[in-house]
């Protein structure tokens, strides 16, 4: 239990740092080794476990300050490259978001008595609902723009609004895919733990990547079709977003899943009670 709390403390420091996986793993292991040494030294001096833990955490220093200093040691190019990871980091740090994620993920997993056909139909319905969520605001903006007279300045503004809206919708889709993927991955690994683990993961990446590209492709195709009569600037902005967003989504899913997998290995940053339940779950 104490070891778990030491690990939780270190995870709380390292998780939000923007750096590559290898660097963060090194930080995790080294900081945990240092904190463990500190704890063991306190125990050797005759402290009780709780007192030793309190003194070790105090002697280790302020987590926020350590995190800031550790972040400053990461080269700038790496910080920029891995800034996308702050999204899953943020998700993982928010208890309510993770509960939503778990619920979303569980809704996409086949029930013990559910037939494959029913499950497939339910999944299709889920993806359809996701498409509607993404499409409705964008089509709303597009339709609203048809009623506005536009000069050259307004065309730029419209192009920006639609490209921005498309990006937000795609990020929403990406966010949901990451959460769903996390849940599905856990479920698959629980059921097929062992030999098939690697195959499941590979299949899952393939499935999610294809789905993400398909959905975003459909979204942008729909918008492009409905606004073909608009200006050249508008279409250029749309084309750029169409090309860029599937790649962004794919990368975010891949990175998100990889990061989540490490969270699994390193445990939660939330405190757990004696029964192993999250404190915020009551």
């Amino acid at each position: 239990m104490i070891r778990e709390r030491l690990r939780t403390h270190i995870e709380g420091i390292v998780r939000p740092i923007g750096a590559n996986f290898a660097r963060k793993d090194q930080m995790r292991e080294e900081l945990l080794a240092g904190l463990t040494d500190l704890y063991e030294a306190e125990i050797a001096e005759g402290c009780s476990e709780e007192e030793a833990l309190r003194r070790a955490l105090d002697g280790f220093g302020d987590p926020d300050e350590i995190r800031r200093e550790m972040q400053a040691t990461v080269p700038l190019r790496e910080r920029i490259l891995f800034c996308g990871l702050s999204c899953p980091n943020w998700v993982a740090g928010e208890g309510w978001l993770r509960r939503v994620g778990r619920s979303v993920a569980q809704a996409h997993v086949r029930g013990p008595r559910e037939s494959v056909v029913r499950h497939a139909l339910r999944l299709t319905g889920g993806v359809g609902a996701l498409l509607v969520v993404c499409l409705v605001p964008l089509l709303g903006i597009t339709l609203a723009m048809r009623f506005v007279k536009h000069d050259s300045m307004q065309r730029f503004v419209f192009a920006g609004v639609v490209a921005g809206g498309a990006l937000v919708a795609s990020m929403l889709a990406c966010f949901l895919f990451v959460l769903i993927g996390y849940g599905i991955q856990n479920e698959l690994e629980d059921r097929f733990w062992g030999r098939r683990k690697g195959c499941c993961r590979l299949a899952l990446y393939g499935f999610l990547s294809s789905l993400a590209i398909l959905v975003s492709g459909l979204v942008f195709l729909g918008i492009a079709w409905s606004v073909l009569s608009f200006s050249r600037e508008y279409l250029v902005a749309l084309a750029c977003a169409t090309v860029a967003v599937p790649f962004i989504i794919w990368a975010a899913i891949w990175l998100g899943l990889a990061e989540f997998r490490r969270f699994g290995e390193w445990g939660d940053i939330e405190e757990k009670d004696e029964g192993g339940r999250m404190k915020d779950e009551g």
Partner: protein
Amino acid sequence: MKDITGNTLRGHLETLVLAILEKGEAHGFEILRRLKDESSGALNLKEGSLYPALYRLEEMGCIAGNWEGESEERARGPRRRIYTLTPKGEKDLAQRREEWRQFTTTIGRIVEGRP
């Protein structure tokens, strides 16, 4: 003697770490312990503040870190990283020593009112 904390040491921590590693390789906790021993307990550093300094020195090529081997590895728990001074670190330490001498001579002359 009054404790010397992290803020007072800011800017000198790297030099202290290099000086400690000159006497032999060490991991983070060991460096901290040696610092405390050699200052007769006056250097009261938070262990967490040591690692960023180690990473900075490693990035500069002044020290090299290696994970402890299987034989030294504790039966359970995380591995430590053992740091050694590199040839570049030795040169850097010599330069820092020279700068330190100049600094203490100049500042000491003013603060202590020496001619």
